[in-house]
């Protein structure tokens, strides 16, 4: 079989637009280039605006992780102002953010990732009939159930935040709505519904037992619920060895709470290191951007309107200490120290990524329940936060898909610099000056391609296992 080139895209069932160019030889992918073909220029739009406008504009980068963008902007402004939310506001903000992340994970699993297993190409596999019933795109019973569970969960965001997507209630000084005791009871009822959905449909067992899994072997033996169905198919298709990432995992730390973050941040590469934002630089050698590599506080966004031949994406290539890193639920759980996640981080393939996300779903439901139980209504939910006319601020947060950072520079009361590095910017970055591919580009090398396959199934599984959000990637 001779080498050939294949363009896969537009990818559906991802947030936003994505194209991947593959070189194929001997039935395997030998090289991959990820292109984000959508550019809107948010970082340019922010220039000259008042800093507080970031709270309204940046969430609109993405309609699915909008609270994550809102949190990062809030934290950047709070850093600029030297402000901190009162403890109860931290809890309320963590609940808002956590519910969005939980819903994003459900959307990814039920609407975007699993429908690939219901494809006719897998007919004849032992699990296909069940998959088709549960996960056929736009029709499967699992999809419908997940949509309903999500809608119910978003009542919590509605209650605390007024509306979703694009909630405005989180501010540098706290949250604008002080929930009452009655609100708390309503939210608890919503969380009970969510637990019921997870235990009946996703895990088919108490979620504490999934959260307590300690080894990859124990996870592989999980049989119940949609999670069990996935693991069965994953085992049959050998997805554990497919789509290996760089093995370096970043998390900025998630859910700032009064006693410290719900899940602590760091860099995991088999050992744990502190995460240092000073180590971050964005390389522009293969993106249609002008200028040199820079730390986001100095970085600029100057699109190369000639779209030069040597580049192939609007996405910049962020690197940590010069290296490509992977970010997401698996990274977050491995960095936070969960034994199962750390074992999965060694595999670092499709099964590990999805398994890490399932683990986080179970743990996030528990975290939300605990945070809500600790929330004391009728206390102080807002402090004064005055924004200075000059200064800098960094807002580091964790979206469902991984590490998100906002870097703001203010001069004369106006924004003089605003740079954003989103999770998918890390995961779907193009090559850097040394020619090192981005995480998904590297993960695709070696993926099997059957004769005559135009949209290889292995590529679909690998790409979607990262849960790309292309809207956020380039912004």
């Amino acid at each position, binding site marked *: 079989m001779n080498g050939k080139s294949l363009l896969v895209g537009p990818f*559906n069932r991802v947030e936003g*637009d994505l194209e991947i160019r593959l070189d194929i030889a001997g039935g395997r992918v030998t090289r991959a280039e990820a292109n984000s073909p959508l550019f809107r220029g948010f970082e340019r739009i922010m220039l000259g605006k008042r800093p507080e406008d970031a709270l309204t504009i940046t969430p609109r980068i993405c309609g699915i992780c909008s609270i994550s963008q809102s949190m990062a902007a809030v934290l950047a402004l709070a850093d600029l102002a030297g402000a901190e939310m009162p403890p109860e506001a931290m809890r309320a903000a963590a609940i808002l953010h956590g519910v969005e992340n939980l819903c994003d994970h459900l959307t990814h699993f039920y609407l975007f990732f699993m429908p690939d297993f219901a494809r006719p190409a897998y007919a004849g596999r032992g699990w296909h009939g069940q998959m088709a019933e549960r996960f056929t795109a736009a029709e499967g019973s699992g999809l419908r159930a997940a949509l309903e569970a999500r809608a119910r969960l978003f009542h919590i965001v509605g209650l605390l935040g007024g509306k979703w997507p694009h909630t*405005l*209630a989180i501010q540098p000084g706290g949250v604008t709505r002080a929930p009452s005791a009655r609100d708390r009871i309503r939210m608890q009822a919503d969380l009970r519904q969510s637990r019921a959905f997870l235990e009946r449909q996703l895990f088919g067992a108490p979620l504490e037992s999934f959260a307590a899994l300690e080894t990859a072997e124990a996870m592989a033996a999980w049989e119940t619920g949609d999670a069990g169905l996935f693991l069965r198919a994953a085992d049959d298709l050998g997805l554990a060895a497919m789509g290996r990432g760089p093995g370096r995992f970043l998390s900025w730390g998630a859910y700032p709470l009064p006693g410290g973050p719900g899940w602590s941040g760091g860099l995991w590469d088999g050992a744990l290191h502190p995460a240092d934002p000073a180590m971050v630089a964005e390389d522009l050698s293969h993106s249609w951007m002008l200028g040199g590599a820079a730390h986001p506080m100095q970085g600029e966004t100057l699109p190369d309107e000639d779209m030069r031949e040597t580049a192939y994406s609007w996405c910049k290539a962020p690197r940590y200490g010069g290296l490509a890193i992977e970010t997401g639920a698996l990274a977050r759980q491995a960095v936070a120290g969960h034994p199962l996640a750390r074992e999965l981080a060694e595999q670092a393939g499709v099964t590990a990524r999805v398994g890490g996300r399932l683990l986080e779903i179970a743990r996030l439901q528990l975290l939300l329940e605990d945070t809500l139980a600790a929330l004391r209504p009728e206390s102080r939910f*807002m402090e004064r936060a005055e924004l200075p006319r000059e200064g800098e601020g960094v807002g580091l947060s964790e979206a469902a898909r991984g590490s998100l950072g906002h870097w703001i520079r203010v001069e004369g009361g106006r924004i003089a610099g605003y740079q954003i590095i989103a999770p998918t910017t890390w995961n779907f970055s193009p090559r850097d000056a040394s020619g090192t591919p981005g995480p998904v580009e590297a993960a695709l090398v070696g993926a099997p391609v059957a004769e005559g396959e135009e949209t290889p199934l292995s590529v679909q599984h690998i790409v979607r296992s990262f849960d790309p959000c292309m809207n956020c990637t380039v912004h």
Partner: protein
Amino acid sequence: MSQIETFYDVMRRQGITRRSFMKYCSLTAAALGLAPSFVPKIAHAMETKPRTPVIWVHGLECTCCSESFIRSAHPLAKDVVLSMISLDYDDTLMAAAGHQAEAALQETIEKYKGNYILAVEGNPPLNEDGMFCIVGGKPFVEQLRHAAKDAKAIISWGACASYGCVQAAKPNPTRATPVHKVITDKPIIKVPGCPPIAEVMTGVITYMLTFDRLPELDRQGRPAMFYGQRIHDKCYRRPHFDAGQFVEQWDDENARKGYCLYKMGCKGPTTYNACSTVRWNEGVSFPIQSGHGCIGCSEDGFWDQGTFYDRVTDLTQFGVESNADRIGATAAGVVGAGVAAHAAISALKSAQRKSQTKNEDA
């Protein structure tokens, strides 16, 4: 086989019972503000008329409209609407990928030529020949023109498609352009908001599917049934406005008491939308109820009005009884109606000329 099935057939196929179907018809009538006598008419229309195919395309956007849509209030309403339109082509939710997906789009266009509704989420960027938004190797603006050519009508979902939204904020780096400035020869219904309320989206689409015509539109092309009143008119904090009780700071006592947010920059007094009546997330709340002012996201240009926390200053020009049409008319009257109309026509012509030359170049 080429005959299109009726809505009722589709619903039966989805396993929806007759009882649920009738319940859905009543709900629809209620949501659209129609008298109960309309229920049998809706039922009859759905039983006998071929369903209307819908093509849903995405340009420069953030997918928030889709996100809102799939959380419509009544699970049945959502199910029915989803199966009715069955999203003949929608690249966020559909099963096919890559070339198959493009083939599916082409097939839908040909099969339902002249009969389908084109739902547009997001807008086309026109700078650099549209290279800032590429779908299937071609600028989105081309896909949009192609899909619009044989559409019966177009729905512009959200602030992006209707007006441009934040990506069109100064300096509008990609020249993000609303749909009606690119497609000038089709009926367009604007459903603005960032995103629009889910029930407004399903309400509009159900109305069009049931009655086979556009709902009554206001001067700006928005469905009057949902955009006929200001948020301020039905705001539960309105008594505090009338009594002069305002929040002055996020952390003050008045904020805790739930006073009016006008001084915090609330745009409720100048924004036409159903937030204060229909509310969000299945009727749970809306931004003002969460203690933050309205930013006016269903109004043209809301993103470039100074900071979002500037106070509305042109409040005294009209009373509670005004509607968007009357205010629009007043504004046009000030400018000189003739001049405005002339300007609009020339803009239209020049847009058409431009699109023609562009087509010839391509």
